[in-house]
Structures are given as structure tokens and as C-alpha cells.
């Protein structure tokens, strides 16, 4: 089911009389295509979960509309929207077994939809098989690992075959290894069912690795929506550029003068077709080329080898942040000096942003 948000806004009133109200979600207006896995990405407290809660009906929007396909569901109570929600801490009913947890939504069906006990158990078993927990049906949630509980929560959300599956930080309570495994699992389940799935995360790597599309938001304001690689390569502003990618993008205070880009005294790029003045220059870690004759002069701090990546850590007076990280393939690593290093930069990995608005400046 396609999910369309139309000028969706949520304002929370202030807790006390003096405080100001909080705009958790500000004028969201985009369409989530059918059958896709969408990652809703943003730093903690930016209103991601509120968007999710509005889509599933636990929160009422202050203004704006929500459409599932052609149907306006804004005023429809959550149980009639046909959504499944996986909570951050799973919210499995601790006193019920796995089977009872999964059949719970089915037992609430009334009228024509009402199912017999056999049908309910059959459906529960199908959902359990999908998430591969069919051997644990008689356990209580307290007797299971976090990863298993997570699967039960997904099975419970899926058992009614929802039109839209929503997940609130589904991986944040899992350890690192399980997180990798479970995110592949979510991808597999989503592909197997074809249900439009929206998941919330603050972890950009998580969002990038499994989503068909990511939506980046900040302080309740929509930033960008696109395929993960597209957002990484082509961010609309400095925030999005900084938020995506590990190691993070290296940001310099730079200046454009006569179509030439200067970082300090170093002219790092020419034919930059923008108007003169100071800019933010962001260079991705993989955008550096080690070169004895390179344009950008930096002071060498050290070389970090982390698994497959070798990164050169250096500093430059014009940088922001702690240091500059340049990822270089190991065979190119030839350092001639102990305290200085010079780079050339790749044009397609260098992004310019307006000094004031931080919006992207396109050149060429």
C-alpha cells in the first residue's frame, strides 16, 4: 500500500505554562511507494517516532492528512487502519506465551473476520515460520533472547497481514552482531511479504544498508528522500552530508575566488562555477588522493588501520571537527614525510555548501 503524507504536522503543547510548544513534525509532505522498505532517519529526538505513531494512529496529527492508497485514514482509529507496529522494546505481553502473543491480534477480530481457534493457530504458525521462531511457540518472552523477542514482535505485527508494517528503532536493543543479522532478516521478511515497511532509526549505516529509500529528517523538518546511495552522493545540505557516512564527511572552511576553490592558501580545485565568497567544503573520506605534489597541505597525525580500511589522520587549520580522515587503499600508502601529507581531491567527492544556509551549492 502506498502511504502518502500531506502537510503532516504535529505540535505538542508545552508541559508547563511558561515553556514553548514543540513542533515535533513540521509539514511533512511526501509519498512512500508501495512495497518498499523505507528507512526514516534522523538524530535522536528529531520526531521520527512521532511520524511513525501518526501513521499508525497512536498519535493524532495537529494538521495534515495521511492516505493509505486512495483512502484518507487520518481519522480512522489505529485498529482499523490495518497497520502492524514493532515497538523499540518489542512490547511483548510478558504473561503470554509466544503463540498467545502472536494470536492476540487475531482474537480481536470481530464479525465476518472472526477466526476459529485452528485458523488462528495456523496463521500464527505461518507468521512464526516466516520469522523462523516456530520452535519457540510455548516459551514466554522472558525466556528468550533479545533477537528472538524481536522476531516474535515482528510475527505479531505481521500475523494480520497489515497493509503497512511500521518498526520503531527495531534494532537498537540488540548487540552489534545480532543487529547485522536481524537487519538482513528484516530485509528478507519485507521482500518475502512485499508489505510496505517503514522503519525508524538513528543509525545511518543501518538505514543505508537495507532500505530501498531513506527519508532524512532533522528537528521535525524533512530534509531529503531518495535511494540511500543517492542521498550519500548527492545530499541537499550540510546536515544530510554530515549525517550520512562513516567516517563522516570532512568539512573545511573554504573560499571561492575567480572560479577557484581555496582551502586556506591551497588552491584545491579549479573550474568551480559558483560566485565568489566563503563556502563550506565537504570532502568524503574516500575523496582524497595521496600525492607528494598534491594541492592540499595537511599535518600528519597518524595512520589508522581498521579492518579493510586504512585511513590517514591529519589536520588542517581550516578544518572543522577534530581531524581529517582520508581513506586510502593500502597499496597507495606511501608516506614520504613524518609530519606532513599532501592530497589531491576528487571532484565528485567534493561538495560545496552555502556558508549561511548550509544548502548545497552545485557547480559545473
Amino acid at each position: 500500500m502506498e502511504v502518502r503524507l500531506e502537510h503532516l504536522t504535529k505540535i505538542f503543547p508545552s508541559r508547563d505554562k511558561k515553556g514553548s510548544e514543540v513542533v515535533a513534525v513540521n509539514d511533512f509532505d511526501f509519498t512512500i511507494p508501495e512495497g518498499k522498505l523505507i528507512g526514516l532517519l534522523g538524530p535522536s529526538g528529531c520526531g521520527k517516532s512521532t511520524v511513525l505513531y501518526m501513521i499508525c494512529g497512536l498519535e493524532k496529527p495537529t494538521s495534515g492528512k495521511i492516505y493509505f492508497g486512495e483512502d484518507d485514514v487520518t481519522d480512522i482509529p489505529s485498529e482499523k487502519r490495518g497497520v502492524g507496529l514493532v515497538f523499540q522494546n518489542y512490547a511483548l505481553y510478558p504473561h503470554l506465551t509466544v503463540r498467545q502473543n502472536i494470536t492476540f491480534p487475531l482474537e480481536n477480530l470481530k464479525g465476518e473476520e472472526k477466526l476459529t481457534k485452528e485458523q488462528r493457530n495456523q496463521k500464527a504458525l505461518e507468521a512464526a515460520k516466516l520469522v523462523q521462531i516456530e520452535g519457540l511457540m510455548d516459551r514466554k518472552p522472558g525466556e528468550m533472547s533479545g533477537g528472538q523477542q524481536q522476531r516474535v514482535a515482528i510475527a505479531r505485527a505481521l500475523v494480520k497481514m497489515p497493509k503497512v508494517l511500521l518498526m520503531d528503532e527495531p534494532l537498537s536493543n540488540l548487540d552489534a552482531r545480532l543487529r547485522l543479522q536481524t537487519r538482513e532478516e528484516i530485509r528478507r521478511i519485507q521482500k518475502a511479504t512485499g508489505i510496505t515497511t517503514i522503519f525508524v532509526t538513528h543509525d545511518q549505516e543501518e538505514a543505508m544498508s537495507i532500505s530501498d529509500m531513506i527519508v532524512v529528517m532533522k528537528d521535525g523538518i524533512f530534509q531529503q528522500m531518495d535511494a540511500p546511495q543517492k542521498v550519500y552522493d548527492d545530499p541537499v545540505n550540510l546536515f544530510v552530508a554530515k549525517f550520512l557516512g562513516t567516517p563522516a564527511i570532512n568539512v573545511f572552511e573554504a573560499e571561492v575566488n575567480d572560479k577557484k576553490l581555496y582551502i586556506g592558501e591551497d588552491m584545491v580545485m579549479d573550474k568551480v562555477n559558483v560566485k565568489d565568497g566563503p563556502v563550506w567544503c565537504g570532502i568524503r573520506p574516500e575523496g582524497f588522493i595521496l600525492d607528494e605534489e598534491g594541492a592540499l597541505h595537511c599535518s600528519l597525525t597518524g595512520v589508522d588501520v581498521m579492518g579493510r580500511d586504512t585511513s590517514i589522520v591529519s589536520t588542517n587549520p581550516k578544518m572543522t571537527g577534530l581531524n581529517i580522515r582520508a581513506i586510502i587503499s593500502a597499496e597507495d600508502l606511501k608516506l614520504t614525510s613524518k609530519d606532513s601529507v599532501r592530497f589531491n581531491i576528487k571532484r565528485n567527492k567534493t561538495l560545496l555548501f552555502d556558508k549561511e544556509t548550509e544548502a548545497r551549492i552545485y557547480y559545473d
Partner: protein
Amino acid sequence: MTKSGVKREGIMGTLSGWLYLAPALAFLIFFMVYPLIDVFIYSFEEGYNSASQTYFGIGGYNYSYVLRDPYFLQAVKNTFILVIFTVPISTILALLISLALNSIEKLKKLFQTIYFLPYVTNTLAVGLVFMILFRKTPYTDGLINMMIKALGMTTVDFIEGPYWAKMLVLCVYVIWIVMPFKILILTSALASVNPVYYKAARIDGASKTRIFFKITLPMISPMIFYLVITGFIGAFKAYSDAVAIFGVDLNAAGMNTMVGYVYDMLYGDGGGYPSYASAAAIILFAIVLTITVINLIVSKKTAPKG
């Protein structure tokens, strides 16, 4: 660390553990275990004389006397009626009030305070007020009887009138007295249920009643069992409540309780009959123990795990 080192630490650990427990244990043994054993022994000593500390022999006469004493049988009947009515009614009422308290936002604190007031009020003072409310004298009908009259029904003296009327007042009084504590426990139990379960249940399409019976009730059931168990024990030990309303001569009023009977046997009639009192106390102990064990078994079987 060597194996023996570990072992020694274990023994030392146990020893120091007992040492820490010793003061509390000493108090328990002196003031709980020893008296209990003593009472048990008294209850089998026939014709015990407290002045000369002598007795004729050992046997079950004290028990057979007590069990045939109409005052004791009346007290047992009263106590059981009190237990059977007040424990479930007060628990259910407290649950309903707690649910209401938990669902309101404005004035919640005020209402919580109001409902808690009886807990800190003196029982005898409350009893006096109840007596004045329910009493019917040649001079005045009392507030309750005036209301009954206004509804067009016949008035009745609740304090010195028929048995059912007196029992009714006692039950109402006991329920009123025990409710604040139950409300306090249940409101905090309800508040401690993670709201995420209610959200999940709403998404799952559960109705309000279903949420209550399938989610809320199982989640607070340990607290409910706690209240039922302590409620049973408390009601079996009721005494001051009856005194507060009907005065000290409870046997004459026909409103004595088991604890009241024990007390009367100890101190009534100048010196009293400690052997009979002990026998009655042991019978009460056996009843309370049985009921509590049954309660615990039931709660173990139905209480949620994990």
C-alpha cells in the same frame, strides 16, 4: 585462588550472613517463635492456674471446651462472614476506584489524598462516627435511618438491632477502613504497567474490556494476590473494628470476633482462662495458615511468570 580458599570463603560467607541476621533472628525467636510454642503448650495444659502456675494434666479438653462454647462459635461465624464479604468487595471496589483514579488527569492528586485519608484516621474515632451515623435512639433516628425513611423504607437500629443489620454495619466499616491501603497499592500497580503494552494492544485491535482482562489484570495480579492474602489475614484478625462500633462487651452484642474471644478469655472475668484463650488462638492460627497456604497455591498457579 585455590579451591580450598573458595570453600573457606563460602563458609565464612555463610557465617557472616548468619551474624548479620542474628539481631533480627533473636527478636523473631523471642517475640514470635517462643510465644507461639508457649501458646501451643498452654493450649494443652488442662486447668491451668495463672496465679499458682499449676495445671492438672495434659490433654485436648481446652479445645473441646472452646469448640462447644456458643460464644466461640458465634465469633467464628462472625469472623467468617466478615472475611467472605469484606475481602472480595473491598478489593474489587479498590480496583474500580484505582482504575478511575488512573484515568483522570485533573485533580488526581487531590482524589488520591482524599481516598487515603481513612488510612491515617484513628479506627476508634471512625467507629464512633459510624455508630452515630447508624444508631437509632429514642431521640433521633440517625443520619442513615433518616435517609432510609426518606426513601420510604422502615428504619432499623443498626447498632443494637437485628443481627444482619449489625453485621452490615461492621462489614461496611471494615471495607471502608481497609480500602485506602488497597487503593494506594493498586494505583501504583496500575501506574507501573508500561504504557507501551496498551499501545501495542490498541494496534492489535483489542477492546477496552479485553485490554483490561487480558493485559491489565494479569500484569497487576501479583499485587492483587498480595492484597487478597493480607486482606484475609487482616479480616481474620479483626477485633478493634467491632469494639469501635459495638463497645467492649461483644459477646453480649453477639458481634464478637475470634480475636475478640481470645482477648475476652484472657482478661475477662477477673484473671480469665489463658488455657481456653490459647486453644482458641491456636484454632485461629490453624485457620489463617490453611487459608494463606491455599491462597499462595492458587496465586502460584495463576500468576504470570517472567
